[in-house]
């Protein structure tokens, strides 16, 4: 039964119709969650004991950084799915995610720089965390341009998938960079194993902002994947009915 479900869902047609069905629910609920978390975080949380108000950029920086890495992992999963099972939808998803991953990484870098000026006294330093995140950004751009450089879609999909898999090694490096080397960037405040080192009053809106941002970015990915399907399947008869 699970196999049948996957088979159905992997068909671009079913995917498109299911996405259209659930899209508004995901979009409006995550929009509401993100806006509430932002208002909560910006106006109803106390100041930080050393940073004052400037820490509030965390409600954009942390969700964006989290998503920049998660989207890459999603691309890696899609790449394996495409290379092993030749699921076309997975290939569409890779190239649908890449520009959005680049965007979230860019937001993470910019918001981090803005925070760095009042906190560290500099907007850019070549420490391991910042540099590995910049590499992630460049890798997203590289994947997009690699895919665009082929006129043959199948070739583009295959090579892009391989590059995604090879580059996936960067993700644990970004994650662990603050533990393996001395960096200017602080280590994680929220970990799976230990008590958060961020006060609960600031933590709840942060979790809300991560969930809300995740939902909003998911919606962007869904829209972008719909666009990919429309381009790549444009010769199919069902597309004409759909449009």
């Amino acid at each position, binding site marked *: 039964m699970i196999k049948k479900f996957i088979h159905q869902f992997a068909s671009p047609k079913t995917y498109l119709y299911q996405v259209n069905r659930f899209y508004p629910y995901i979009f409006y609920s995550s929009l509401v969650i993100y806006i509430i978390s932002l208002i909560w975080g910006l106006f109803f949380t106390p100041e930080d004991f050393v940073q004052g108000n400037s820490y509030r950029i965390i409600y954009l920086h942390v969700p964006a950084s989290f998503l920049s890495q998660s989207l890459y992992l999603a691309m890696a999963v899609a790449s394996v799915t495409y290379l092993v099972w030749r699921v076309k939808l997975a290939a569409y998803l890779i190239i649908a995610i890449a520009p959005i991953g680049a965007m979230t990484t860019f937001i993470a870098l910019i918001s981090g720089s803005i925070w760095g000026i009042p906190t560290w006294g500099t907007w850019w330093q070549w420490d391991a965390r910042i540099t590995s995140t910049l590499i992630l950004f460049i890798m997203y751009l590289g994947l997009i341009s690699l895919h665009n450089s082929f006129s043959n879609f199948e070739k583009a999909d295959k090579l892009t998938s391989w590059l995604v*898999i090879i580059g996936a090694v960067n993700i644990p490096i970004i994650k662990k960079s603050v533990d393996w080397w001395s960096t*200017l960037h602080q280590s994680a405040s929220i970990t799976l194993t230990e008590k958060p080192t961020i006060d609960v009053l600031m933590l709840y809106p942060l979790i809300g902002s991560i969930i809300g941002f995740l939902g909003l970015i998911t919606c962007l990915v869904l829209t972008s994947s719909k666009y990919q399907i429309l381009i790549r399947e444009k010769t199919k008869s069902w597309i004409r009915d759909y449009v």
Partner: protein
Amino acid sequence: MNQIRKKRLYNILLVSLFSVSGISLILYSLNSNLDYFFTPTELKEQNISSDKRIKIGGMVLEGSVFRNDSNISFTVTDYESFVKVEFKGIVPDLFQEGSGVVALGYLNDEVFYAEEVLAKHDENYMPPNIEINNDS
């Protein structure tokens, strides 16, 4: 899973293995070069010539900050070793005793002459009225 798919999966695992081991070797050989700064203890252990521009990092020792016009001197410590730092210029707002700092400059006769001082923030976020109760 049929044979072709199994083979493809093995190929992917092989490629990832190569990718991971290649990068690990690079990182392993670069190891300490990827460190953003030296801690005072590392500075004691290694002989670094005075014409080499380096970064040191650690905590600003409590009660060690002295200001004189725009000159500021303080001691950086990892609570094992200590390095005295001299700096002329403006330090970031978050620079304070007992918190993290990174300084860029030259080490000369046990004194570090800094050209640039950055504040390092730690992972603790809390409102002002709550006492710090972690042991770091």
